[in-house]
């Protein structure tokens, strides 16, 4: 695939950071443009008219939207020698990987958002969200099993889909009143391993404290405190 590669992202976005990791994993040179989600750029609005969301990957002027769609696009389009695949070759293993990546979006992200987005004092809602978040994390931990990575011996599609949520664990923990280390020690260890053993991950993820500060700022802006 030829052409200039541009990523529209917001530094805390787990969806955008999936794309950062994948591009670095494949050794693709790209330019990142930081979006202010309270004042979206004309480029973002014209590249993603349907949702006006990050991430958007623009390759030679053509936009691709939705993080998991972008990951598959990167795998389809940047498979030059030396750039390993994110998805496995085996059809059943691919389906398995797609299933778990989708699970991160529909179950973990959905519950996690409810943990930090609930207005102050909504204890019942937060408690329910905490339960659902921990359940999703435990399910993911069970799927990891004894493997070093969801992809097996090395980082794969599911790892890239999930690890950008690791910087959000601190935020879930502080608002939800639990710790990932206590509830899911193997998953916590996996997150550390991803960062320690993979430069593409270490270079792509924000500090957990920065995510927390960002969320606190958002809560104030939306009058949730």
């Amino acid at each position: 695939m030829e052409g200039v590669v541009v990523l529209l992202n917001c530094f805390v976005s787990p969806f955008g950071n999936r794309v950062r990791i994948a591009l670095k994993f494949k050794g693709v040179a790209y330019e990142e443009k930081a979006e202010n989600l309270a004042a979206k750029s004309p480029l973002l609005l014209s590249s993603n008219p349907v949702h006006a969301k990050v991430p958007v990957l623009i390759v030679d002027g053509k936009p691709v939207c939705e993080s998991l769609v972008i990951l598959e696009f990167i795998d389809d389009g940047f498979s030059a020698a030396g750039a390993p695949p994110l998805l496995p070759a085996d059809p059943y293993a691919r389906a398995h990987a797609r299933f778990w990546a989708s699970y991160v979006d529909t179950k973990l992200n959905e519950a996690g958002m409810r943990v930090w987005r609930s207005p102050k004092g909504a204890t019942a809602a937060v408690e329910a969200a905490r339960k659902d978040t921990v359940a999703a994390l435990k399910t993911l931990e069970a799927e990891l099993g004894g493997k070093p990575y969801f992809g097996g011996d090395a980082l794969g599609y599911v790892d890239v889909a999930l690890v950008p949520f690791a910087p959000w664990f601190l935020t879930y923990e502080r608002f939800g009143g639990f710790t990932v280390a206590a509830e899911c020690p193997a998953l916590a260890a996996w997150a550390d391993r991803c960062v320690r053993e993979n430069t593409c991950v270490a270079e792509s993820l924000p500090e957990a404290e920065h995510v927390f500060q960002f969320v606190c700022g958002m809560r104030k802006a939306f009058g949730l405190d």
Partner: protein
Amino acid sequence: MEKKSSENATPPVAAPLKLFGSWASSYTHRVQLALRLKGLEFEYVEEDLGNKSDELLRHNPVHKKVPVLVHGGRALPESVIILQYLDDAWPETRPLLPADAFDRALARFWCHFADDKLGPAVGAVFASTGEDQEAAVRQVHENLALLEVELRDGAFRGRRFFGGDEVGLLDVVLGCGSYWLAVFEDVTGVRLVDADAFPRFNAWLRDFEALDEVRETIPAVDRLLEYARGLRHMLLGLAGANAAAPSADAPTTAAAAPSAAAADIAVDI
């Protein structure tokens, strides 16, 4: 080739295919249609969604939903994932996804749109009344307008089907569900897919529904109408409404929790 993890290896293509589904589920129809388009034989098991079989729950412990395709003992849940599996496992036979990376991304993007935006909006129209319903109808119209623009001027302009001259992944995903639009219009009395406002979408839907494999797959409209009337009656808790009593053939989901039935089957396109 060394098998790293035998639990994750694809069975031989000749291994038997067994589909667990529900007759009124558009997600199930997607898989039935794709199997027919690929010329693949399969055994079909009708699930009672109010009383799911142990076998289904064993094959889809995470979501406990239909459809699930079992290929040589390996279970595949989630309709869009199943469709892509069929392409990956039978790449020579009538591909559902195009070859070009951008075109594939577009097809996948609009499949997400169908399931995350259009489907829930249509479901909301069906499950509500009054002002809530009006808001949901506006949402549906906005979503259909986006598709109409793509068909008229955008990524899909000049095409008979989203997949080109032949149906592809997006046609199967959007098509298996779009037949509910006319059914819901009839049951709710609300105009959803005006042929004047959405001429290309209507033309596409008409061509899609005329295909032999599609006619084999989508249930007869009077069964869909009866089912929808019963479901709406239940969802709205209307007393003495003019709804037909479910026949002996209809799934016993009439007795199941309304929201569970709606989520499982047809209210989401």
